[in-house]
């Protein structure tokens, strides 16, 4: 079984997608229980991060080459993700202080799982188009339980933007930074 998974990229990509969805949905359901929100977010983020264990850093888009550009890209992605909320008149939500650490853990975990492991598995299975489309689709479905339907368009567009960056720059550092900034602010 293990060898079959190892040598069949499509099977491995499918299993990774199912595992990511199960973690995200479990996290969303448990987070709705009184008193369990922060614990669910932190444990869910850790579980997503753990999925990256065993994958070479370069396969995930991690690395230190041109690190300044990666950080700069992350800041720019953060700007793009926050811009609609920043220029919109009226209210934007506040992030309760207790959720700040959870927001960071979830952001890193989601990027490692979606644009890191799932992207790499799908790219190996069907190339960049499948990796970009597949991660965007799974990312959107993963948010279906935690977001009202009208928010899924924006979630999908954010997923597509981050996946395209991952493809265009072969980089995961910037999506991690941009995602963390966006989650910390909203």
């Amino acid at each position, binding site marked *: 079984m293990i060898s079959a998974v190892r040598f069949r990229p499509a099977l491995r990509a499918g299993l990774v997608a199912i595992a990511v969805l199960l973690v995200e949905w479990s996290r969303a359901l448990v*987070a*709705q*229980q*009184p*008193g369990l*929100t922060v614990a669910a*977010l932190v444990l869910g983020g850790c579980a997503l991060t753990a999925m990256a264990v065993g994958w070479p850093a370069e396969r995930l888009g991690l*690395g230190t080459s041109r690190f*300044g*550009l*990666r950080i*700069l890209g992350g800041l*720019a992605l*953060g*700007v*793009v*993700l*926050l*811009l*609609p*909320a*920043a*220029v*919109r*008149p*009226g*209210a*934007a*939500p*506040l*992030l*309760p*202080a207790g959720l700040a650490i959870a*927001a960071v853990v*979830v*952001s890193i975990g*989601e990027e490692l799982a979606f644009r890191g492991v799932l992207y790499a598995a799908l790219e190996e299975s069907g190339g960049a188009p499948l990796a970009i489309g597949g991660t965007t689709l799974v990312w959107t479905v993963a*948010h279906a339980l*935690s*977001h009202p339907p*009208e*928010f899924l*368009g*924006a*979630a999908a*567009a*954010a997923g*597509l*933007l981050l996946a*395209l960056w991952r*493809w*265009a*720059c*072969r980089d995961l550092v910037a999506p991690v930074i941009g*995602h963390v*900034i*966006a*989650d910390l*602010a*909203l």
Partner: protein
Amino acid sequence: MTRKGTRPAALLALAAVLYAVAAWTVAPGFYDGFGPPQAYNFTCPPPQAGANNKPASGHLDIKVIGGVSDANSAFTEDGQIVIGFLPGAFVVDGKTTIAVDITPLATCPKPSGIRFVTNIYQVTASAPLNPDKPANLVLRYSNLEPDPSKVYQASDPNGAWAPLTSQPGQPYTIETRTTTFGYFGAGYPSSSPPTGSIQVGGGQILPIVVAALIVMVVLAGLPLAVMRRRR
């Protein structure tokens, strides 16, 4: 690190525009992981609330079967207050139906020593509660306000307010139990405000954060571009 050519850059720019359009259709846009809470309908909206609908009222008729009032829950149409009754929660006194009404107060009392973060709701019923079977009351509050620590009750909104034993419920809700009706609101003692929220998302701070990020990108990008050209 990067792919060569203009196609990746063009696709990235297109995705950024697509995101901006998609995010503009829903406030606040990309809002990850924590589920956007339903907007709170304020009687007296805070400045950062933006567009605001007036809070809704609620009505419930509870059947009395065999001299015992049925279990049921009364709530407002916007779900900002829910009060649940156990079987036999009312002293029925021969009634066949108990009417429960929830009405948001049209004003926002500011009693000394208390800072309310929710609307004030008047809960009335056509029969008193059985003291042995307290009703469970849940108040939802806004993410634009600090978390309340207590639910307060008063028989007159301009009179004395008493704190009830309260506990946090589901996210952005606070729960208590009561054996009497009257006026209810959630808040905290103004002498000990909650340690509170990171108000990064509201008011003027988010535009400042984004502007600072833009400046950082530009300032950091210039030396990087110069270094790249020298190579």
